[in-house]
């Protein structure tokens, strides 16, 4: 598979196939991350879409490194700016709900519910911690890349990850 820079260079030359490759490769991750930032489906889709649009408008603004991290950065900025700028926009926030009596019959469904609860719990964390841990643990970005996406220092990222991990461990202490 061509590397990110090659793809964006092709995109800059008007190669739409390159755009398709980029979107296919990153859309799920970008939408998931945007969702974790906005906690709102529509806003997340808007932000993710905007990230790809901005890349398409100006492919040269990506100058190397991880394209996915670049898309995360744009999506996050879009999401946060939009919330900042438009008070009428609201976010859907699912609070942590005590799971109803834990079932034993259907293990898969129970597992799905448990994972949903983890997502709900993460959604209740401060944005910096939430995004730092998601990018680091779930998206596999390095601390430096996470710092770039969040526009902060590596030290702050490390702190945020540790703090988020601690909360997660406390809440899901039975995790093995």
């Amino acid at each position, binding site marked *: 598979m061509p590397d990110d820079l090659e793809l964006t260079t092709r995109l800059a030359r008007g190669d739409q196939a390159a755009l398709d490759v980029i979107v*296919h490769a990153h*859309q799920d991750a970008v939408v998931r991350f945007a*969702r974790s930032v906005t906690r709102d489906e529509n806003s997340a889709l808007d932000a993710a879409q905007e990230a790809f649009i901005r890349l398409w408008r100006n492919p040269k603004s990506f100058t190397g490194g991880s394209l996915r991290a670049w898309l995360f950065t744009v999506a996050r900025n879009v999401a946060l700016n939009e919330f900042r700028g438009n008070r009428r926009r609201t976010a859907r926030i699912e609070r942590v709900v005590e799971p109803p009596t834990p079932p034993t019959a*259907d293990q898969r469904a129970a597992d799905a519910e448990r994972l949903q609860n983890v*997502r709900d719990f993460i959604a209740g964390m401060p*944005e910096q911690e939430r995004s730092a*841990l998601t990018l680091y643990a*779930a998206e596999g970005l390095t*601390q430096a890349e996470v710092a770039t996406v969040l526009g902060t220092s590596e030290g702050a990222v490390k702190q945020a990850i540790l703090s988020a991990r601690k909360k997660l461990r406390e809440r*899901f202490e039975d995790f093995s």
Partner: protein
Amino acid sequence: MSELPHDPIDELLHRAHNAADGAPPEFMGRLRARFAAEAVARKRARMVYIQSAVAAAAVIILALVIGLNVEWFFPHPEPVGQPGTAEASDTPAGNTPALEPRAPDMRPEPQPKPEGNTAPEPDQPEPGPAQPDDPKPEPKKPDDVVDQPTPEKPEPKDPQPVQPEPKQPDDTVEKPEPVKPTEPDGTEVKPPQPKTGAVLASVIAEPKLRIRYEGEAWHDYAGEELHDGVRLSAGRDAVSLTLADGGLAYFDGEVRLSLDGEVLCFSISTDNLYIDNLDTAREVKVVAERFSAGMSDAVAAFFLERSEFEVAALVGSASLGGETIEAGNSRRASSRGIGNEKAFKGDRFLKDVPERILLREDFDQPPPGGMYGDGERLEDGVAVMDKAPRYIAFRYNPTLTVLPGMVVRIRYRTTDVNKLELELFTLAELKLLKKNKETLYKRVFSPARNGEWQEIEFRVDKIADNDDPNHFPSHGELFRNFKLHFSGGDKAKLEIDTVEFVRVQDPVR
């Protein structure tokens, strides 16, 4: 800085995060549509730029040509010998003689008709050929996606912007939703004359009712749509209407519905009218004799009796002749003017105001906002769940605004269930650097019996905040989803036939 050591809890997060849905299937399609739209917009912008440049060039050329030829049209009658005016002296002496031979031909007419008529003719060919040339270099840049025809459509509209009548377009009023409540009953519909224009309302439950439009005779209502200018005359029973924007009107006597710009206008000549336009964004005006009342995002009642017009605000505020009426109060207008605001004492007419349906989910099809998709299934118009995670949940689309007098009603059946938990989640504004305020309103109850269909309803404003038993949903809050948990034995099962949110008008005392 070194990477943090691996923590097993990361794995849980990793699984949770990646188990969530990625981009929905339509994401790519929407993205493509945006690319296409942007490409077209870009192309159009470039075209406008090019056209402007061409036009500017043409103007310059035209000006130059005129400048050069001006001597033809305004030849100097006194070439060298008369230094009369400044202009005359500005003209280079060397040029005039050269033009002089032609000048005499044009001389008889030029004075009354300046260059305007004559000049463009020789010049026109110049900008003409330039235009086709210019777009050519453009196509090399634009993207393939540009081909999409849809965004191009607005263009043809431009040439005929004046067409819409001052009456106002339909699109603002015509909503598909309000038509749903009308249950035509299979009655033979024979509209006397097909009407066009905005559908203003639909009749609920079709009681005895006569209608007519200007110039027509009264005829029995037969399920037709109600358009601008319709007159309605209730029979013995009052009539309720679902307004095109989702509001509710209830009246006896006679009313006329029309659109006054964006305002929905009711003219009443006798009797009583009740209007609920909460959360509809449609301003309403009520005209009675020479008085005019207005309301927006409110509930109000209007009574006209013996030339006295009373307006009562029940929720929100209304106005009468420019005077405001706050909720719970009323004002009267008569030949003596507009009276003071007084506490409204109620009226028998309001006793039978029907419910306004705000949301009804019957599970014949997946709800517009989607089910949670955690294992529940829709079977013959019933949502069924008989396994973990033991809830039936769906999202509202759009969100549901909490209104005063709101009631949630659920028709359901349980098997082996001993506890049900109704959860209503609100939307919460995302506040940066602050803990987000989110609210879960929760009501726990038990099924009256297992194995039978039953209906239960709760006043929404009595369902307490799960974290604060003294806090209840308030007007304007936005609910985003419905969730009904159940717990019980191994074979526990929940079936929901319908979920309804309605607004009921509390009696006024």
